[in-house]
């Protein structure tokens, strides 16, 4: 006879309630926050989106990219091109930039997936360089020196300055929520199960019928979609674009990686916590300049070696609290919390 000895939990209601309350409070922020605060929060939201998407790639799918600046820049340039040359309303140009990014990611992925593991990382960086060099060839957008968003385009966002700030704020918040929601949904779907199987053991997942290549394409495309939208939004806020700013590895990849690692790789909450910590640190240490980046590098290395689960990982392990539990959790009914006989039959040759 087979004793089950475990049951399956889904959980996460308390976390969802908290998250919803926070979202409502943030959505109402224009009613009580200053213009400077809204601008800062919009930046935080954009980084939360970028970091969550990088986490989806590296933390959940084993696709460690150091070239996501390719899509940030692409999104920014799409925004400028679509609004300036095609007269597309700026807020509509944001999702369109996402679509362009997702479409372009297909041939890019077809090439990059030929590189295994760590070489994929550098390959993604090469791709971002190619994007940057191509962008500096677009003379209509100022070539290497870049361009500013014309007044008429800026005015097309909203008539008054305050309304523009509100619009960009809400768009940033919406993007962050959309990205997190999309990732939670993806990871809880059968795709998420496939991803975890791949992350655990790619060969075994493949042998069990998981179409590894297709899953990776979908994830990479989704990340490109969200990252391009974030790029469009970021440069709508900045109002000025240049190849060096748009495809900056420091701004769009180093910061993003550091915040994710510090917050907790491979957890939904990690990038959110990391982005908040990152901005809090930056407010206090911003005049340190390059020393600030240097320190972040040291902290990220220390975190990777000494606390690989990051701030949120450490917190969640202490308290057992998660905002977004991913899928089911098997709970063993015996006291040890371990599978009673799961290790039987191996032992000698693990």
């Amino acid at each position, binding site marked *: 006879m087979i004793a089950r000895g475990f049951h399956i939990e889904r959980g996460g209601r308390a976390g969802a309630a908290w998250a919803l309350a926070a979202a409502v409070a943030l959505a109402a922020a224009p009613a009580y926050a200053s213009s400077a605060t809204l601008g800062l929060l919009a930046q935080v939201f954009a980084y939360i989106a970028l970091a969550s998407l990088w986490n989806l790639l590296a933390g959940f799918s084993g696709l460690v990219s150091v070239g996501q600046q390719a899509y940030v820049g692409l999104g920014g340039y799409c925004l400028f091109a679509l609004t300036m040359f095609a007269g597309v309303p700026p807020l509509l140009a944001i999702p369109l930039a996402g679509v362009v990014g997702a479409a372009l990611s297909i041939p890019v992925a077809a090439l990059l997936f030929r590189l295994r593991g760590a070489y994929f990382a550098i390959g993604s960086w090469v791709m971002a360089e190619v994007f940057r060099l191509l962008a500096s060839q677009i003379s209509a957008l100022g070539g290497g020196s870049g361009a500013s968003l014309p007044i008429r385009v800026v005015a097309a966002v909203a008539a008054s300055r305050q309304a523009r700030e509100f619009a960009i704020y809400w768009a940033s918040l919406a993007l962050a929520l959309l990205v997190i929601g999309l990732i939670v949904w993806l990871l809880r779907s059968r795709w998420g199960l496939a991803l975890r199987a791949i992350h655990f053991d790619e060969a075994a997942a493949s042998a069990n019928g998981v179409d590894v290549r297709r899953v990776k394409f979908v994830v990479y495309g989704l990340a490109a979609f969200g990252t391009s939208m974030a790029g469009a939004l970021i440069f709508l806020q900045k109002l000025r674009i240049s190849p060096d700013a748009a495809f900056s590895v420091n701004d769009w990849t180093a910061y993003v990686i550091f915040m994710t690692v510090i917050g907790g790789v491979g957890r939904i909450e990690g990038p959110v916590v990391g982005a908040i910590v990152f901005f809090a640190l930056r407010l206090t240490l911003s005049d340190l300049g390059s020393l600030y980046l240097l320190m972040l590098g040291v902290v990220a290395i220390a975190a990777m070696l000494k606390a690989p689960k990051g701030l949120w990982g450490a917190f969640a392990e202490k308290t057992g609290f998660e905002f977004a539990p991913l899928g089911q959790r098997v709970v063993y009914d015996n006291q040890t919390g*371990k599978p009673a006989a799961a*290790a*039987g*039959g*191996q*032992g*000698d*040759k*693990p």
Partner: protein
Amino acid sequence: MPDAPLLKVANLDAFYGDFQALRGVSLDIAAGEIVAIVGANGAGKSTLLKTIAGQIRAPRGAITFDGEAIGGERAHAVVRRGIALVPEGRRLFSSLSVEENLAIGAQSGRSGGWTLSRVQQLFPALGERARQPSHSLSGGQQQMVAIGRALMSNPRLLLCDEISLGLSPLIVRDIYAVLPDIAAEGVAIAIVEQDVARALAASRRVVCLREGRVVLAGLSQDATREAIAAAYFGV
């Protein structure tokens, strides 16, 4: 036993993550002695050898070699003390030639009677194929390289993990035939073996493990088929 044993394992526990593979195993091996370690799949035989060889961590005092506590030392340091493991599956270096595979065994820098030419005398096939890539050899020849590589470190204790696996009986006979010669030079040998009859014939003493525990230990010539079977399966 009058002399202090060469190797003394005392109350050894070993773990793979949360799984306890060895439970309070104790075992002595004297110089020049051949001891067979038998048991069913998953009984902990390979784990025992790997723990002695330093591939799996052990408490310092649980393993004593030549009077010194060596538990917890890393594998490369254990080799330098004179314990060599012939790993299961032979594990030759595929991009090294036969001769290089043997020569790298001398890496530990221990001096002694085992040299390249003596190993090639022991296994003449290896001398003829010295320059060939190791993966071009037959299974039996690969096993000879693995044993030769271990001997090149001039061990005082040779641990052999499933050296007959996947080989034809004739080849196995040839390989087992060299063990008494090696032991005659004072080298202690521990063999982990699935073929119980082969193990008993080759050894002076036998130890049977089941679920990580020693369930039988004695002279090989006294061990009856029934006693071994009972110890093996716990019936």
